[in-house]
Protein backbone atom coordinates (compact mmCIF):
# COMPACT_ATOMS: atom_id res chain seq x y z
CA UNK A 1 0.00 0.00 0.00
CA UNK A 2 1.43 3.35 -0.99
CA UNK A 3 2.15 5.64 1.91
CA UNK A 4 0.31 8.90 1.92
CA UNK A 5 2.43 11.77 0.68
CA UNK A 6 3.49 14.36 3.23
CA UNK A 7 4.50 17.13 0.86
CA UNK A 8 1.47 19.08 -0.29
CA UNK A 9 1.17 20.49 -3.80
CA UNK A 10 1.93 23.94 -2.41
CA UNK A 11 5.14 22.72 -0.82
CA UNK A 12 6.21 20.95 -4.01
CA UNK A 13 5.51 24.07 -5.99
CA UNK A 14 7.48 26.22 -3.53
CA UNK A 15 10.42 23.81 -3.66
CA UNK A 16 10.38 23.58 -7.45
CA UNK A 17 10.47 27.38 -7.67
CA UNK A 18 13.95 27.32 -6.13
CA UNK A 19 15.42 24.96 -8.71
CA UNK A 20 16.22 27.55 -11.46
CA UNK A 21 18.21 29.62 -8.96
CA UNK A 22 21.05 27.11 -8.63
CA UNK A 23 23.23 25.16 -11.03
CA UNK A 24 22.61 21.97 -9.04
CA UNK A 25 19.40 20.56 -7.62
CA UNK A 26 21.18 19.51 -4.45
CA UNK A 27 21.57 23.20 -3.58
CA UNK A 28 17.80 23.30 -3.08
CA UNK A 29 18.14 20.97 -0.08
CA UNK A 30 18.21 23.70 2.59
CA UNK A 31 15.45 25.80 0.97
CA UNK A 32 13.32 22.64 0.71
CA UNK A 33 13.89 21.73 4.34
CA UNK A 34 12.86 25.26 5.32
CA UNK A 35 9.70 25.04 3.20
CA UNK A 36 8.62 21.84 4.90
CA UNK A 37 9.70 22.97 8.36
CA UNK A 38 7.72 26.18 8.12
CA UNK A 39 4.53 24.26 7.42
CA UNK A 40 4.98 21.16 9.57
CA UNK A 41 7.26 22.58 12.29
CA UNK A 42 9.48 19.54 11.77
CA UNK A 43 10.82 17.48 8.88
CA UNK A 44 9.78 13.84 9.25
CA UNK A 45 11.73 11.09 7.53
CA UNK A 46 8.99 10.60 4.96
CA UNK A 47 9.39 14.26 3.92
CA UNK A 48 13.11 13.69 3.55
CA UNK A 49 12.41 10.83 1.16
CA UNK A 50 10.02 12.96 -0.87
CA UNK A 51 12.43 15.92 -1.00
CA UNK A 52 15.14 13.58 -2.23
CA UNK A 53 12.82 12.31 -4.94
CA UNK A 54 12.05 15.87 -6.07
CA UNK A 55 15.70 16.85 -6.20
CA UNK A 56 17.04 13.65 -7.75
CA UNK A 57 19.04 12.76 -4.65
CA UNK A 58 19.42 9.72 -2.44
CA UNK A 59 17.40 10.18 0.77
CA UNK A 60 20.62 9.67 2.72
CA UNK A 61 22.06 12.81 1.16
CA UNK A 62 19.14 14.92 2.36
CA UNK A 63 19.15 13.23 5.77
CA UNK A 64 22.89 13.81 6.06
CA UNK A 65 22.40 17.54 5.51
CA UNK A 66 19.35 17.77 7.76
CA UNK A 67 21.11 16.06 10.65
CA UNK A 68 24.03 18.49 10.45
CA UNK A 69 21.98 21.59 11.19
CA UNK A 70 20.49 22.03 14.62
CA UNK A 71 17.49 23.86 13.25
CA UNK A 72 15.30 21.03 11.98
CA UNK A 73 13.51 18.68 14.34
CA UNK A 74 12.58 15.29 13.00
CA UNK A 75 10.72 13.19 15.57
CA UNK A 76 7.84 15.49 16.34
CA UNK A 77 6.80 19.08 15.64
CA UNK A 78 8.13 21.86 17.82
CA UNK A 79 5.62 24.01 19.69
CA UNK A 80 3.41 26.62 18.09
CA UNK A 81 5.99 29.11 19.28
CA UNK A 82 9.70 28.35 19.40
CA UNK A 83 11.86 30.57 21.54
CA UNK A 84 15.65 30.74 21.41
CA UNK A 85 17.43 32.07 24.50
CA UNK A 86 21.01 33.16 23.88
CA UNK A 87 23.65 31.68 26.18
CA UNK A 88 26.81 32.95 24.48
CA UNK A 89 29.28 35.23 26.18
CA UNK A 90 27.73 38.72 25.84
CA UNK A 91 24.32 37.48 26.99
CA UNK A 92 25.81 35.22 29.65
CA UNK A 93 27.58 38.24 31.16
CA UNK A 94 24.22 39.95 31.54
CA UNK A 95 22.12 37.08 32.83
CA UNK A 96 21.38 34.96 29.75
CA UNK A 97 21.86 31.63 31.52
CA UNK A 98 19.63 32.73 34.38
CA UNK A 99 17.00 33.85 31.88
CA UNK A 100 17.07 30.45 30.20
CA UNK A 101 16.75 28.72 33.60
CA UNK A 102 13.92 31.00 34.60
CA UNK A 103 11.99 30.40 31.41
CA UNK A 104 12.48 26.64 31.62
CA UNK A 105 11.23 26.61 35.22
CA UNK A 106 8.30 28.85 34.38
CA UNK A 107 6.98 26.45 31.77
CA UNK A 108 8.39 23.22 33.20
CA UNK A 109 10.57 21.98 30.34
CA UNK A 110 14.26 21.53 29.63
CA UNK A 111 15.97 23.27 26.69
CA UNK A 112 14.96 21.50 23.48
CA UNK A 113 11.62 20.34 24.89
CA UNK A 114 8.04 21.38 24.17
CA UNK A 115 5.39 22.13 26.77
CA UNK A 116 2.70 19.38 27.06
CA UNK A 117 0.06 21.75 25.63
CA UNK A 118 2.23 22.20 22.53
CA UNK A 119 2.34 25.96 22.86
CA UNK A 120 6.03 26.51 23.39
CA UNK A 121 9.40 24.96 22.62
CA UNK A 122 12.30 26.42 24.56
CA UNK A 123 15.76 26.25 23.01
CA UNK A 124 19.14 27.58 23.99
CA UNK A 125 20.94 29.44 21.24
CA UNK A 126 24.54 30.25 20.57
CA UNK A 127 25.04 33.96 19.82
CA UNK A 128 21.91 35.47 18.27
CA UNK A 129 23.92 38.45 17.04
CA UNK A 130 22.08 40.96 19.20
CA UNK A 131 24.72 41.39 21.90
CA UNK A 132 23.93 45.08 22.46
CA UNK A 133 20.51 43.95 23.73
CA UNK A 134 21.80 41.25 26.09
CA UNK A 135 20.23 39.15 27.41
CA UNK A 136 18.10 38.55 24.35
CA UNK A 137 15.81 35.87 23.01
CA UNK A 138 14.28 35.23 19.63
CA UNK A 139 10.66 34.17 19.47
CA UNK A 140 9.72 33.02 15.98
CA UNK A 141 10.28 36.26 14.06
CA UNK A 142 10.61 38.72 16.91
CA UNK A 143 13.73 39.59 18.86
CA UNK A 144 13.06 40.39 22.51
CA UNK A 145 15.72 42.72 23.86
CA UNK A 146 17.29 43.07 27.31
CA UNK A 147 14.73 40.63 28.66
CA UNK A 148 13.98 40.72 32.40
CA UNK A 149 12.49 37.69 34.18
CA UNK A 150 9.26 39.63 34.47
CA UNK A 151 9.19 40.21 30.70
CA UNK A 152 9.82 36.52 30.18
CA UNK A 153 6.81 35.74 32.39
CA UNK A 154 4.65 38.15 30.41
CA UNK A 155 5.80 36.52 27.20
CA UNK A 156 4.71 33.13 28.55
CA UNK A 157 1.34 34.53 29.64
CA UNK A 158 0.76 35.99 26.18
CA UNK A 159 1.23 32.65 24.40
CA UNK A 160 -1.72 31.41 22.43
Amino acid at each position, binding site marked *: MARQRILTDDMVQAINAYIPRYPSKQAVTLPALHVVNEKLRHVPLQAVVEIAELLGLHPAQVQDTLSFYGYFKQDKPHGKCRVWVCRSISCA*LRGGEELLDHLCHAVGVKPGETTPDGKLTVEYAECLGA*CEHAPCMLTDNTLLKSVSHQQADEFVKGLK
Partner: protein
Amino acid sequence: MPEFEPVLLANVGKPDSQTLRAYEAAGGYQALKKVLKTLTPSDVKEQTKASGLRGRGGAGFPTGLKWTFLPKDHPGPIYFCLNADESEPGTFNNRILMEDDPHQVLEGLIISCYATQASTAYYYMRCEYPTAWLHTQQAIDEAYAAGYLGKNILGSAYSLDVYLHRGAGAYICGEETGLIESLEGKRAWPRIKPPFPAVEGAFRKPTVVNNIETVACVKHIFDRGVEWFKSIGVPPDPKNPRDAGSYGPKLYCLSGHVNKPGCYEAPLGLTVTELIDRFGGGIWQGRKAKAAIPGGISMGLLSAEEFHCPLDFNGPGRFGCLGLGTAAVVVMDETVRMVDYLFNSCRFFSHESCGQCTPCREGTNWATKMLARIKQGKGRLRDLDLLAEIGETIGIIPGTTICGLADGAAWPIKNCIKKFRPELETFIKSTNPGGWMETKPVPAMELLNIH
Protein backbone atom coordinates in the same frame (compact mmCIF):
# COMPACT_ATOMS: atom_id res chain seq x y z
CA MET B 1 43.34 65.25 12.34
CA PRO B 2 40.06 66.08 10.56
CA GLU B 3 36.96 65.04 12.41
CA PHE B 4 35.81 61.55 11.52
CA GLU B 5 32.49 61.32 9.75
CA PRO B 6 30.66 58.00 9.99
CA VAL B 7 29.60 56.66 6.60
CA LEU B 8 28.63 53.03 7.20
CA LEU B 9 26.16 54.00 9.91
CA ALA B 10 25.13 57.34 8.35
CA ASN B 11 21.60 56.17 7.55
CA VAL B 12 21.14 53.78 10.46
CA GLY B 13 18.39 54.81 12.84
CA LYS B 14 16.77 57.27 10.45
CA PRO B 15 13.09 56.84 9.53
CA ASP B 16 12.42 54.32 6.74
CA SER B 17 16.19 53.91 6.28
CA GLN B 18 15.61 50.45 4.83
CA THR B 19 13.64 51.73 1.84
CA LEU B 20 14.96 52.55 -1.61
CA ARG B 21 13.37 56.00 -1.47
CA ALA B 22 15.26 56.99 1.68
CA TYR B 23 18.48 55.44 0.40
CA GLU B 24 18.35 57.29 -2.91
CA ALA B 25 17.44 60.54 -1.15
CA ALA B 26 20.67 60.16 0.86
CA GLY B 27 22.71 59.79 -2.35
CA GLY B 28 22.38 56.03 -2.70
CA TYR B 29 23.27 54.16 -5.91
CA GLN B 30 25.31 57.13 -7.21
CA ALA B 31 28.51 55.11 -6.78
CA LEU B 32 27.04 52.25 -8.81
CA LYS B 33 26.00 54.64 -11.61
CA LYS B 34 29.50 56.13 -11.70
CA VAL B 35 31.16 52.70 -11.73
CA LEU B 36 29.00 51.29 -14.52
CA LYS B 37 29.41 54.41 -16.66
CA THR B 38 33.08 55.18 -16.23
CA LEU B 39 35.02 52.16 -14.96
CA THR B 40 35.92 48.75 -16.33
CA PRO B 41 35.75 45.73 -14.01
CA SER B 42 39.52 45.67 -13.82
CA ASP B 43 39.56 49.38 -12.84
CA VAL B 44 37.24 48.52 -9.97
CA LYS B 45 39.48 45.64 -8.92
CA GLU B 46 42.62 47.77 -9.08
CA GLN B 47 41.10 50.68 -7.18
CA THR B 48 39.80 48.37 -4.48
CA LYS B 49 43.28 46.87 -4.24
CA ALA B 50 44.82 50.37 -4.07
CA SER B 51 42.45 51.38 -1.28
CA GLY B 52 44.01 48.80 1.03
CA LEU B 53 40.56 47.49 2.02
CA ARG B 54 40.89 44.31 4.06
CA GLY B 55 38.08 41.84 4.66
CA ARG B 56 35.90 42.74 7.63
CA GLY B 57 34.62 39.22 8.33
CA GLY B 58 37.50 38.20 10.55
CA ALA B 59 40.54 37.14 8.55
CA GLY B 60 41.46 40.60 7.26
CA PHE B 61 42.59 39.41 3.86
CA PRO B 62 43.04 42.24 1.30
CA THR B 63 39.79 42.31 -0.68
CA GLY B 64 41.13 43.57 -4.02
CA LEU B 65 43.89 40.97 -3.92
CA LYS B 66 41.33 38.21 -3.29
CA TRP B 67 39.47 39.31 -6.42
CA THR B 68 42.61 39.19 -8.56
CA PHE B 69 43.05 35.49 -7.73
CA LEU B 70 40.10 34.72 -10.02
CA PRO B 71 41.22 33.22 -13.32
CA LYS B 72 41.58 35.81 -16.09
CA ASP B 73 39.06 35.68 -18.97
CA HIS B 74 37.29 32.74 -17.42
CA PRO B 75 34.74 31.49 -19.97
CA GLY B 76 32.30 29.92 -17.51
CA PRO B 77 30.32 31.37 -14.62
CA ILE B 78 31.92 33.06 -11.63
CA TYR B 79 29.92 33.05 -8.42
CA PHE B 80 29.80 35.63 -5.70
CA CYS B 81 28.81 34.59 -2.19
CA LEU B 82 27.93 37.27 0.29
CA ASN B 83 28.68 36.03 3.77
CA ALA B 84 25.90 37.12 6.11
CA ASP B 85 26.27 34.15 8.43
CA GLU B 86 27.46 36.44 11.19
CA SER B 87 27.63 34.18 14.28
CA GLU B 88 30.83 35.11 16.09
CA PRO B 89 29.84 35.73 19.71
CA GLY B 90 29.86 39.45 20.37
CA THR B 91 29.36 40.45 16.73
CA PHE B 92 26.26 42.16 15.34
CA ASN B 93 27.38 44.84 12.87
CA ASN B 94 26.20 42.91 9.80
CA ARG B 95 22.76 42.56 11.35
CA ILE B 96 22.49 46.32 11.85
CA LEU B 97 23.58 47.06 8.26
CA MET B 98 21.12 44.54 6.83
CA GLU B 99 18.22 45.65 9.01
CA ASP B 100 18.67 49.40 8.75
CA ASP B 101 20.50 49.98 5.50
CA PRO B 102 20.12 46.95 3.23
CA HIS B 103 20.50 48.99 0.04
CA GLN B 104 23.96 50.11 1.11
CA VAL B 105 24.95 46.45 1.29
CA LEU B 106 23.29 45.72 -2.05
CA GLU B 107 25.02 48.60 -3.81
CA GLY B 108 28.39 47.42 -2.53
CA LEU B 109 27.49 43.88 -3.56
CA ILE B 110 26.57 44.92 -7.10
CA ILE B 111 29.82 46.89 -7.52
CA SER B 112 31.82 43.95 -6.16
CA CYS B 113 30.05 41.52 -8.49
CA TYR B 114 30.72 43.84 -11.44
CA ALA B 115 34.42 43.92 -10.50
CA THR B 116 34.60 40.14 -10.38
CA GLN B 117 32.22 39.69 -13.34
CA ALA B 118 29.96 37.39 -11.40
CA SER B 119 26.48 37.18 -12.86
CA THR B 120 24.96 35.32 -9.92
CA ALA B 121 25.33 36.24 -6.28
CA TYR B 122 24.17 34.10 -3.36
CA TYR B 123 23.41 36.11 -0.28
CA TYR B 124 23.89 33.57 2.52
CA MET B 125 22.15 34.78 5.67
CA ARG B 126 21.92 32.99 8.99
CA CYS B 127 18.36 31.98 9.86
CA GLU B 128 18.27 33.83 13.19
CA TYR B 129 17.94 37.25 11.52
CA PRO B 130 14.25 37.51 10.57
CA THR B 131 14.16 41.32 10.34
CA ALA B 132 17.36 41.50 8.33
CA TRP B 133 15.92 38.81 6.03
CA LEU B 134 12.68 40.71 5.50
CA HIS B 135 14.37 44.06 4.85
CA THR B 136 16.97 42.54 2.56
CA GLN B 137 14.37 40.67 0.51
CA GLN B 138 12.34 43.88 0.19
CA ALA B 139 15.49 45.76 -0.84
CA ILE B 140 16.31 43.13 -3.48
CA ASP B 141 12.77 43.37 -4.88
CA GLU B 142 13.00 47.17 -4.97
CA ALA B 143 16.41 47.02 -6.65
CA TYR B 144 15.08 44.70 -9.37
CA ALA B 145 12.12 46.99 -9.98
CA ALA B 146 14.40 50.04 -10.21
CA GLY B 147 16.79 48.38 -12.64
CA TYR B 148 19.73 48.07 -10.23
CA LEU B 149 19.52 44.29 -10.52
CA GLY B 150 18.56 41.94 -13.31
CA LYS B 151 19.34 42.16 -17.02
CA ASN B 152 21.41 45.07 -18.35
CA ILE B 153 21.71 47.03 -15.14
CA LEU B 154 21.05 50.76 -15.72
CA GLY B 155 21.32 50.18 -19.46
CA SER B 156 24.82 48.73 -19.28
CA ALA B 157 25.90 45.37 -20.67
CA TYR B 158 26.21 43.99 -17.15
CA SER B 159 23.54 41.66 -15.68
CA LEU B 160 23.32 40.27 -12.17
CA ASP B 161 20.91 38.13 -10.19
CA VAL B 162 20.97 38.06 -6.39
CA TYR B 163 19.37 35.22 -4.44
CA LEU B 164 18.90 35.12 -0.69
CA HIS B 165 19.85 31.76 0.78
CA ARG B 166 18.86 30.88 4.31
CA GLY B 167 21.19 29.12 6.72
CA ALA B 168 20.03 26.74 9.43
CA GLY B 169 21.95 27.55 12.57
CA ALA B 170 25.58 26.58 12.17
CA TYR B 171 28.53 28.83 13.08
CA ILE B 172 30.82 26.98 10.70
CA CYS B 173 28.89 28.32 7.68
CA GLY B 174 30.74 31.60 8.25
CA GLU B 175 33.96 29.86 7.17
CA GLU B 176 34.04 30.52 3.45
CA THR B 177 34.36 26.95 2.24
CA GLY B 178 31.89 25.77 4.88
CA LEU B 179 29.50 28.34 3.47
CA ILE B 180 30.06 27.03 -0.04
CA GLU B 181 29.41 23.43 1.01
CA SER B 182 26.27 24.52 2.83
CA LEU B 183 25.10 26.50 -0.19
CA GLU B 184 25.55 23.36 -2.28
CA GLY B 185 23.12 21.58 0.02
CA LYS B 186 25.60 19.56 2.03
CA ARG B 187 26.80 19.56 5.61
CA ALA B 188 29.01 22.61 6.10
CA TRP B 189 32.34 20.83 6.27
CA PRO B 190 35.16 23.22 5.32
CA ARG B 191 37.32 22.17 2.39
CA ILE B 192 41.04 21.58 2.31
CA LYS B 193 42.76 24.53 0.64
CA PRO B 194 44.19 24.86 -1.97
CA PRO B 195 42.33 24.96 -4.24
CA PHE B 196 41.05 28.27 -2.90
CA PRO B 197 37.49 29.30 -3.78
CA ALA B 198 38.79 31.83 -6.32
CA VAL B 199 39.97 28.85 -8.38
CA GLU B 200 37.42 26.22 -7.40
CA GLY B 201 34.56 27.31 -5.19
CA ALA B 202 30.78 27.05 -5.34
CA PHE B 203 29.58 24.39 -7.78
CA ARG B 204 33.28 23.84 -8.61
CA LYS B 205 33.46 27.25 -10.29
CA PRO B 206 35.62 30.27 -9.40
CA THR B 207 33.99 31.99 -6.45
CA VAL B 208 34.49 35.02 -4.26
CA VAL B 209 33.20 35.07 -0.69
CA ASN B 210 33.05 38.49 1.00
CA ASN B 211 31.52 39.82 4.19
CA ILE B 212 28.61 42.29 4.43
CA GLU B 213 30.68 45.09 5.96
CA THR B 214 33.40 44.56 3.36
CA VAL B 215 31.08 45.19 0.41
CA ALA B 216 29.53 48.15 2.26
CA CYS B 217 33.07 49.62 2.39
CA VAL B 218 33.43 48.99 -1.36
CA LYS B 219 30.40 51.18 -1.99
CA HIS B 220 32.00 54.07 -0.08
CA ILE B 221 35.37 53.67 -1.80
CA PHE B 222 33.61 54.38 -5.10
CA ASP B 223 31.53 57.17 -3.60
CA ARG B 224 34.39 59.03 -1.99
CA GLY B 225 37.54 57.70 -3.60
CA VAL B 226 40.60 55.67 -2.76
CA GLU B 227 42.39 58.66 -1.22
CA TRP B 228 39.54 59.28 1.20
CA PHE B 229 39.61 55.63 2.29
CA LYS B 230 43.37 55.64 2.77
CA SER B 231 43.21 58.85 4.80
CA ILE B 232 41.40 56.92 7.56
CA GLY B 233 43.05 54.32 9.75
CA VAL B 234 46.60 53.15 10.31
CA PRO B 235 49.45 52.62 7.80
CA PRO B 236 51.43 49.35 7.86
CA ASP B 237 53.62 48.76 10.88
CA PRO B 238 57.22 49.10 9.61
CA LYS B 239 58.28 46.49 12.18
CA ASN B 240 55.92 43.93 10.72
CA PRO B 241 56.66 43.16 7.05
CA ARG B 242 53.45 41.14 6.79
CA ASP B 243 51.17 43.97 7.90
CA ALA B 244 49.24 45.39 4.95
CA GLY B 245 47.93 48.37 6.94
CA SER B 246 44.51 48.96 8.44
CA TYR B 247 42.71 51.53 6.36
CA GLY B 248 39.17 52.79 6.44
CA PRO B 249 36.29 53.04 8.88
CA LYS B 250 35.32 50.06 11.01
CA LEU B 251 32.17 49.03 12.80
CA TYR B 252 33.05 48.17 16.38
CA CYS B 253 30.54 46.05 18.29
CA LEU B 254 30.71 46.77 21.99
CA SER B 255 28.90 44.56 24.49
CA GLY B 256 29.19 43.11 27.96
CA HIS B 257 29.69 45.18 31.10
CA VAL B 258 29.61 48.71 29.68
CA ASN B 259 27.00 51.40 30.20
CA LYS B 260 26.12 51.80 26.53
CA PRO B 261 26.59 48.66 24.49
CA GLY B 262 26.17 49.20 20.76
CA CYS B 263 27.67 49.29 17.30
CA TYR B 264 29.98 52.25 16.77
CA GLU B 265 31.85 53.44 13.71
CA ALA B 266 35.38 54.75 14.12
CA PRO B 267 38.65 54.73 12.19
CA LEU B 268 40.61 51.49 12.48
CA GLY B 269 43.18 51.82 15.23
CA LEU B 270 40.94 52.99 18.07
CA THR B 271 42.08 51.56 21.41
CA VAL B 272 39.93 49.43 23.71
CA THR B 273 40.00 52.18 26.34
CA GLU B 274 38.83 54.79 23.82
CA LEU B 275 36.04 52.52 22.65
CA ILE B 276 34.83 51.86 26.20
CA ASP B 277 35.13 55.45 27.45
CA ARG B 278 34.27 57.52 24.40
CA PHE B 279 31.47 55.33 23.03
CA GLY B 280 30.49 52.84 25.70
CA GLY B 281 30.04 55.30 28.55
CA GLY B 282 32.53 53.45 30.76
CA ILE B 283 32.24 50.24 32.77
CA TRP B 284 28.80 49.67 34.24
CA GLN B 285 27.75 49.97 37.88
CA GLY B 286 30.86 51.96 38.75
CA ARG B 287 32.97 48.84 38.65
CA LYS B 288 36.44 48.25 37.25
CA ALA B 289 37.19 46.28 34.11
CA LYS B 290 38.93 42.95 34.39
CA ALA B 291 39.34 41.77 30.80
CA ALA B 292 37.95 42.12 27.30
CA ILE B 293 37.58 40.02 24.20
CA PRO B 294 39.18 42.07 21.40
CA GLY B 295 37.34 40.87 18.30
CA GLY B 296 34.81 38.12 18.81
CA ILE B 297 35.31 35.27 21.25
CA SER B 298 37.75 33.33 19.04
CA MET B 299 40.35 36.10 19.19
CA GLY B 300 41.31 35.44 22.80
CA LEU B 301 41.52 37.79 25.75
CA LEU B 302 43.05 41.11 26.78
CA SER B 303 43.57 41.86 30.47
CA ALA B 304 42.53 45.31 31.75
CA GLU B 305 46.21 46.33 31.78
CA GLU B 306 46.27 45.79 28.01
CA PHE B 307 43.38 48.08 27.07
CA HIS B 308 45.75 50.47 25.30
CA CYS B 309 45.76 47.82 22.55
CA PRO B 310 44.86 49.49 19.23
CA LEU B 311 42.01 47.73 17.45
CA ASP B 312 43.57 47.51 14.00
CA PHE B 313 44.56 44.38 12.09
CA ASN B 314 48.01 44.41 13.64
CA GLY B 315 47.17 45.43 17.21
CA PRO B 316 45.66 42.51 19.13
CA GLY B 317 48.34 40.16 17.78
CA ARG B 318 50.97 42.18 19.61
CA PHE B 319 49.19 41.34 22.87
CA GLY B 320 49.11 37.61 22.24
CA CYS B 321 45.61 37.56 20.75
CA LEU B 322 44.76 35.81 17.51
CA GLY B 323 43.95 39.06 15.69
CA LEU B 324 41.36 41.75 15.20
CA GLY B 325 38.70 39.28 14.09
CA THR B 326 35.36 41.01 13.74
CA ALA B 327 36.36 43.90 16.06
CA ALA B 328 33.64 42.86 18.49
CA VAL B 329 34.73 43.91 21.95
CA VAL B 330 33.13 42.15 24.92
CA VAL B 331 34.00 43.74 28.24
CA MET B 332 34.07 41.86 31.53
CA ASP B 333 34.01 43.62 34.88
CA GLU B 334 35.89 42.68 38.04
CA THR B 335 33.13 40.34 39.27
CA VAL B 336 33.55 37.89 36.38
CA ARG B 337 35.22 34.58 37.22
CA MET B 338 37.59 33.57 34.45
CA VAL B 339 36.58 29.94 34.89
CA ASP B 340 33.04 30.92 33.85
CA TYR B 341 34.28 32.87 30.84
CA LEU B 342 36.47 29.98 29.72
CA PHE B 343 33.72 27.41 30.19
CA ASN B 344 31.35 29.55 28.13
CA SER B 345 33.93 29.87 25.36
CA CYS B 346 34.80 26.16 25.30
CA ARG B 347 31.13 25.14 25.36
CA PHE B 348 30.46 27.39 22.37
CA PHE B 349 33.23 25.85 20.30
CA SER B 350 32.43 22.27 21.24
CA HIS B 351 28.82 22.96 20.26
CA GLU B 352 29.83 24.54 16.95
CA SER B 353 32.71 22.26 15.93
CA CYS B 354 31.53 20.67 12.69
CA GLY B 355 33.01 17.33 13.67
CA GLN B 356 35.11 16.81 10.57
CA CYS B 357 38.59 16.98 12.12
CA THR B 358 39.21 14.80 15.16
CA PRO B 359 41.53 17.19 17.06
CA CYS B 360 38.85 19.88 17.00
CA ARG B 361 35.82 17.66 17.59
CA GLU B 362 37.46 15.83 20.51
CA GLY B 363 39.67 18.65 21.78
CA THR B 364 36.87 21.18 22.15
CA ASN B 365 34.68 18.58 23.85
CA TRP B 366 37.32 17.48 26.33
CA ALA B 367 38.11 21.09 27.16
CA THR B 368 34.42 21.70 27.89
CA LYS B 369 34.18 18.58 30.05
CA MET B 370 37.27 19.50 32.00
CA LEU B 371 36.01 23.01 32.63
CA ALA B 372 32.62 21.70 33.69
CA ARG B 373 34.41 19.49 36.21
CA ILE B 374 36.58 22.38 37.42
CA LYS B 375 33.49 24.53 37.88
CA GLN B 376 31.89 21.76 39.94
CA GLY B 377 34.80 21.92 42.37
CA LYS B 378 36.58 18.81 41.13
CA GLY B 379 39.43 20.52 39.33
CA ARG B 380 43.09 19.63 39.56
CA LEU B 381 46.08 21.83 38.82
CA ARG B 382 47.13 19.31 36.22
CA ASP B 383 43.95 20.13 34.26
CA LEU B 384 45.43 23.51 33.39
CA ASP B 385 48.39 21.81 31.74
CA LEU B 386 46.04 19.50 29.84
CA LEU B 387 43.95 22.46 28.71
CA ALA B 388 47.08 24.29 27.61
CA GLU B 389 48.12 21.18 25.68
CA ILE B 390 44.77 21.14 23.87
CA GLY B 391 45.22 24.84 23.16
CA GLU B 392 48.64 24.27 21.64
CA THR B 393 47.71 21.32 19.48
CA ILE B 394 44.37 22.01 17.79
CA GLY B 395 44.05 24.31 14.80
CA ILE B 396 45.47 25.36 11.46
CA ILE B 397 48.45 26.98 13.12
CA PRO B 398 49.77 23.73 14.63
CA GLY B 399 48.56 22.08 11.42
CA THR B 400 46.06 19.58 12.78
CA THR B 401 42.76 20.86 11.38
CA ILE B 402 41.29 21.96 8.07
CA CYS B 403 39.83 25.28 9.17
CA GLY B 404 40.42 27.92 11.80
CA LEU B 405 37.53 27.10 14.12
CA ALA B 406 39.90 25.15 16.34
CA ASP B 407 42.37 28.04 16.46
CA GLY B 408 39.47 30.16 17.63
CA ALA B 409 38.71 27.59 20.32
CA ALA B 410 42.36 27.39 21.33
CA TRP B 411 43.10 31.08 21.70
CA PRO B 412 40.76 31.82 24.61
CA ILE B 413 42.22 28.80 26.43
CA LYS B 414 45.81 29.84 25.76
CA ASN B 415 45.30 33.52 26.57
CA CYS B 416 43.27 32.83 29.68
CA ILE B 417 45.79 30.38 31.12
CA LYS B 418 48.68 32.68 30.28
CA LYS B 419 47.11 35.88 31.59
CA PHE B 420 44.96 34.55 34.46
CA ARG B 421 46.69 31.38 35.65
CA PRO B 422 47.00 32.47 39.29
CA GLU B 423 43.24 33.07 39.48
CA LEU B 424 42.48 29.70 37.90
CA GLU B 425 44.88 27.95 40.30
CA THR B 426 43.34 29.69 43.29
CA PHE B 427 39.88 28.69 42.13
CA ILE B 428 40.89 25.05 41.75
CA LYS B 429 42.68 24.90 45.10
CA SER B 430 39.91 26.60 47.04
CA THR B 431 37.07 24.60 45.51
CA ASN B 432 38.82 21.25 45.65
CA PRO B 433 40.97 21.37 48.79
CA GLY B 434 41.25 17.60 49.02
CA GLY B 435 42.02 16.78 45.43
CA TRP B 436 43.63 19.66 43.53
CA MET B 437 47.06 18.00 43.71
CA GLU B 438 45.83 14.69 42.24
CA THR B 439 47.56 13.72 38.98
CA LYS B 440 46.05 10.30 38.25
CA PRO B 441 43.73 10.23 35.23
CA VAL B 442 40.08 10.95 35.98
CA PRO B 443 37.94 7.79 35.61
CA ALA B 444 35.89 7.97 32.42
CA MET B 445 32.66 7.05 34.20
CA GLU B 446 32.98 10.08 36.44
CA LEU B 447 33.36 12.32 33.43
CA LEU B 448 30.31 10.87 31.75
CA ASN B 449 28.17 12.06 34.65
CA ILE B 450 29.12 15.65 34.12
CA HIS B 451 26.90 16.51 31.21
